[in-house]
């Protein structure tokens, strides 16, 4: 009974230490169960949602929250006076297997503070995951964090055991890292990303790699953040970049004094990230030196469309697929539907709604058979902007509170 008490306390501490990592995705891997216990689902499965509204798909824990590093923003930094714990490999396996069996989780997301040395930490993680794969024949999803400055042969070993491997870049510029994470530098992380990208195969990190940046802990602009993302997507073929609104867990004169994480900004970055990956936008389309930060009142696509109103309105019955994607309120799925359907019949405003287009945004930027949804004289940037913001008013009143606190 005493042992159980210990395990539950460890789990509480090591889940607490892991929760600031935004990634919980379990998609992108086709691990078919032959003689294994469990499999993966290519589309990923969310098993629960915590009270912050984030998906729980994986058992997200740290091997240990002991850490040699002293990154200013991190709960687990060396100088923090908190309870420390370390799992044994068997304990991690026991929890993973029992949770998986009951369908609580899709798999394991193992990260760690850096204990003794990067290689020692990696070896501990590898021992755990190897035990899980080989002794327990676990065939579910495993996402592991690669520890910067570890040896290449350990990276190789770990990569063959997991579905996803990731290293967090944490901050978009070296200046930011120097300030808040003096033990880290981007070249170590780049080295890992480069190695994974060069060796990726069906057996090695099949679900690809991802990374994370903390938003709002340093002075970097959205332009800095997005430029970094674009660079990493192109150079290392990352599956995802996660953006994590800075949560003030530590007091430090180098850290901003905010009470509420910049969630709206985080949301805008995700929206822009989508535009880069799926809508063929480039960073310079949506941000520039004059406007280095996103408009918090409008989503990046609508904001872009208003600044480029000369390209609109688009005629849904004739314009190209690429042009459809540029219309606010039209997504990938609905753009494809429009293309397929308009070969069969002439699309009207009523049909658009049935096809899943968000008409309250899209209607300002398109015509159906040459008709605008109202008097075309109202097709003006100021009028549309005002109305789009009014449509979102409900959300905005909530966000304003956050904004004012954020700017304190």
């Amino acid at each position, binding site marked *: 009974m005493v042992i159980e008490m210990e395990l539950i306390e460890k789990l509480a501490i090591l*889940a607490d230490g892991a929760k600031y990592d935004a990634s919980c995705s379990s998609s992108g891997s086709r691990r078919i169960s032959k003689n294994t216990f469990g499999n993966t689902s290519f589309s990923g499965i969310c098993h629960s949602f915590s009270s912050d509204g984030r998906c729980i798909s994986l058992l997200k824990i740290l091997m240990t929250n002991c850490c040699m590093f002293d990154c200013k923003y991190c709960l687990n930094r060396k100088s923090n006076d908190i309870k420390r714990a370390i799992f044994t490999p068997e304990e991690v396996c026991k929890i993973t297997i029992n949770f998986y*069996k009951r369908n609580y989780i899709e798999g394991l997301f193992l990260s760690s503070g850096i204990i003794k040395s990067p290689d020692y930490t990696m070896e501990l993680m590898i021992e755990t995951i190897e035990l899980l794969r080989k002794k327990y024949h676990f065939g579910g999803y495993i996402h592991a964090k690669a520890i910067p400055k570890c040896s290449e042969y350990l990276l190789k070993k770990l990569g063959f055991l997991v579905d996803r491997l990731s290293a967090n870049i944490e901050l978009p510029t070296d200046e930011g890292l120097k300030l808040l994470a003096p033990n880290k530098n981007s070249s170590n992380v780049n080295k890992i990303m480069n190695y994974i990208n060069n060796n990726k195969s069906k057996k090695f990190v099949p679900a690809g790699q991802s990374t994370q940046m903390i938003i709002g802990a340093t002075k970097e602009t959205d332009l800095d953040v997005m430029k970094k993302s674009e660079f990493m997507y192109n150079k290392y073929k990352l599956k995802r970049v996660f953006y994590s609104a800075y949560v003030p867990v530590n007091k430090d004169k180098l850290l901003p004094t905010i009470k509420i994480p910049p969630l709206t900004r985080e949301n805008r970055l995700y929206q822009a990230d989508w535009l880069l990956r799926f809508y063929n936008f480039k960073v310079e389309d949506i941000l520039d030196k004059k406007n280095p930060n996103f408009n918090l009142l409008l989503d990046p696509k609508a904001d872009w469309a208003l600044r480029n109103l000369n390209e609109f309105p688009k005629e849904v019955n004739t314009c190209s697929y690429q042009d459809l994607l540029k219309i606010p309120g039209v997504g990938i799925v609905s753009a494809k539907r429009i293309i397929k359907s308009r070969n069969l019949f002439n699309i009207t405003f009523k049909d658009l709604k049935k096809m899943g287009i968000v008409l309250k945004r899209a209607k300002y930027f398109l015509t159906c058979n040459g008709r605008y949804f109202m008097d075309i004289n109202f097709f003006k940037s100021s009028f549309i902007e005002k109305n789009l913001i009014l449509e979102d008013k409900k959300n905005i009143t909530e966000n304003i509170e956050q904004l004012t606190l954020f700017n304190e």
Partner: protein
Amino acid sequence: MNKSKSIFLYNYSFLSLLNLIKKLIQNKIVPNDIKNYDYQANLFDNTINLKVPEDEKVINDIINHFGVNILNIMFKVFLSNEQYKELIIYYFWLYSIKYKNKVVYMRNLKVVNKALKISKYVGKEAHRLKGFLRFSELENNVLYAEMAPENNIIIFLSMHFKKRLKNEFWIIKDVKRGILSVYNKKDYFFINENEYKLLTKNVSNEEKNIRNLWKTFYKNISINERKNIRCQMNFMPKKYWQYITEMRDDNEENYK
């Protein structure tokens, strides 16, 4: 004038429904409604039982003429909770004759749009429950889960867990419909709750500890500064909470 409504009856199964609809279309009969044998006829109803044989050929007919995608849509509509689902399948079939596999792009047609929406909803609920279903380990090592979904999606879950937990004995119960899916490490079969009695509902010794570990994890993984209950409920609607381990109070745990 004859005001009575002609209501055609089928024998519960998807196959029976498809054969009936095929027959109706061949004979150019437009039904007022199609219902299964449970239907309680009222005074003005004219219920008709054509007793069409359940021929599996109809499945291939649909796949060959319209594509497997159309069959899937029909099947999902059939598993839905929609009051007029049979009639929707009938009209969807008629439009499929006209537009073949392109019928899925004809959202301007009301019935087609409806069928696609229902089908998507059923698929979405099946996907959700692949995540939200919770097994308990019984004292005889059987994994047992209860659920009460809106739609009859037990077949999708059974296919999923047959692959995932292939070396475990498991039972999934749809409490709303009184159906169990029982898996014997080889295959699963469906059985009515009246015809099957669980050997035990007592959970294993470990079960309580594991549930507590899970609840501890669940509580600690949430970031309080980001609390957003509305967002949580959007993704995980309250109607499912009753059967989700981490959303239940300890003192209302069922099947102790």
